[in-house]
């Protein structure tokens, strides 16, 4: 009890919105800068980590960090307006103030996969944790092998950053496959389940890693497809979502078996997560 400990007062940093982009009718990106210039300069994070964003008088939400870790001017967050806090954040614009605590959790194993192919699988609306990895890899293209981007959405209209997918598809050694359960006029990609696309993915299963986020049912199906293609469990990673309130493994809401998703995750190896993901309620 008398050993030295880091004192954790837990209060957020004050931050200012420096830019706001509307990505879709409900999704927006806030670029934030910490008001304390020294804190902003010292801020470091790894892709896959998250911040707690605080809306004055309302509360906090965990939001994955979207910007590049080497960007020093601001910290990007792509948010869907859904609940009390996120709907309030959606109303903010440049100059407005928020609170920020973070970064928290364990990010993607990007150092470990240097030189290998990377398969990114996302489902649902704008999966920020994985899109941040795409940006990260494209900025450091020489450090990675092939990049395979597989994105599934329910409806064609749900796909955000559509022009980015077009742009990525034209890059060398980059394969983009998008599927919508329900198509729409001028939908250039696949109509059907995203898992129907895995057979077309070109990567070296001997040196590849998969990073996934999205609905857990979709990820379970994707894992089956990836394992059939020869990817071992040890190289399958997923980012999990649970109710998070403290972000430091204390409040208990995000517990997933013995793991605190906020602290031990949100990125897990499939082998760590799989036994409990099979049971609804964890």
């Amino acid at each position, binding site marked *: *009890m008398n*050993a030295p*400990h*880091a*004192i*954790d*007062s*837990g*209060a*957020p*940093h*004050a931050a200012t919105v420096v830019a706001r982009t509307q990505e879709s009718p409900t999704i927006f990106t806030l670029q934030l800068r910490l*008001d304390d210039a020294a804190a902003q300069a010292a801020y470091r994070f790894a892709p896959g980590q998250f911040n707690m964003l*605080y809306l*004055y*008088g*309302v*509360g*906090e939400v965990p939001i994955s960090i979207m910007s590049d870790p080497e960007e020093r001017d601001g910290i990007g967050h792509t948010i*869907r307006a*859904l*609940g009390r806090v*996120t709907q309030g954040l959606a109303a903010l614009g440049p*100059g*407005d*103030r*928020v*609170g920020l605590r973070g970064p928290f959790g364990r990010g993607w194993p990007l150092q470990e996969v240097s030189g290998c192919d990377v398969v990114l699988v996302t489902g649902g609306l704008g999966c920020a944790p994985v899109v941040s990895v795409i940006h990260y890899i494209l900025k450091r293209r020489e450090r990675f092998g092939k990049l395979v981007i597989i994105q599934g959405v329910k409806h064609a209209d749900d796909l955000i950053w559509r022009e980015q997918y077009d742009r990525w598809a034209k890059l060398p050694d980059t394969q983009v496959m998008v599927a919508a359960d329900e198509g729409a006029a001028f939908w250039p990609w696949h109509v059907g389940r995203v898992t129907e696309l895995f057979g077309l993915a070109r990567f070296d299963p001997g040196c590849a890693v998969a990073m996934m986020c999205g609905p857990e049912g979709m990820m379970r199906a994707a894992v089956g497809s990836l394992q059939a293609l020869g990817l071992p469990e040890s190289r399958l990673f997923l980012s999990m*979502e*649970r*109710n998070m*309130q*403290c972000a*430091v*493994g*204390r*409040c*208990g*809401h995000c*517990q997933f*078996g*013995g*793991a605190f998703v906020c602290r031990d995750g949100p990125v897990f190896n499939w082998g760590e997560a799989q*036994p409990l993901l099979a*049971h*609804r*309620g*964890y």
Partner: protein
Amino acid sequence: MPIRSDRAGFLPVAQLPSLVARLMALGYQCLGPAVENGAIVMRELDAPDALPRGLQAAQAPGHYRLTQDPQNRYFAWANGPQAIKPQTFAPQESLWRVARDAEGALQFAAVIPDAPAQALIGVRACDLAALAIQDAHFLREGRRDEHYAQRRDRLFLVAVQCAEPAATCFCASTGDGPTPSAGYDLTLAELAEGFVVEAGSDKGAAVFDALNLSAATPQQIDAARQQGQAAAAAQTRSLPDRNLRDALMSRLEHPRWDDVAARCLACGNCTAVCPTCFCHAEADTPALDGRTSRHERIWDSCFGESHGHLHGFNVRPDIRSRYRQWLTHKLATWHDQFGRSGCVGCGRCIAWCPTGIDLTEEVAALTVGEGTP
């Protein structure tokens, strides 16, 4: 056994107030048993002789009634609905506050409680075991919770050996009682003529020395030992004396979860009285003038609707999954987090469950035919 004959003193029953007086003189706010709303709770003592005598409570599944100890002892009661958890992990407190100026700029400041030094008199072995678990959670290396630490660091713990366990008690089977073995400043064993006293810390030793106690006789020490052994033997409930992690985690789809879910009201009483449950919600309370807001934490329960809430869906939408979360956390995955079970055998969740669900019974039903004790 923890009672060491070399350092045990004897405090005659009439001199118990001198211990309280000593602690008060040292500046401690002294808390001891008191009756409130028909149950025994810890409340501030307003005088050295304010400790009540003869308190006792009969407990059974879904049952707690105050009774009178025929021997009129000070500590013949087993436990009340809440032990000492509120003294360290406050039921509701501010973590930080934020002020907003006319331009909208925010200024955040931590709110660190100015906790009084408190002496808790009548702490049980189960409470001490639970406190050690809460310490491991809130004072984790590298993430010390300052709110918890402020109160914890100023506690003086006067433990008491349980001589009369309740029918709901099973601390002997979890290895946590009924005789306190560690984590106290002073510990008492109540005999008819007085108390066998022992110090467990430097702070405790200083008070022990100041009391100028005569040495406890070998007969008194032996009587205290036997009393502890008898209290252990008197317990009728038990949990299996082994790590239940694998047994429970391999039965996540057992039909017993549906059975218990049909009896469970998801009221959260068990988590509110549990001395090791640590879940808490965080919520903002803005001031009416709009200029400031407090960010608070409030005890929460995994039985509540909001505990597993995630935008758009609930991880645990039904009582079956919530009861299963509680029991498998407490008895199974707790081992992954803290290297032991989260149950200290106090039996509060049994007594205070409005439908009398007994976790020892649920465990027995879930693990029937599994292993051998």
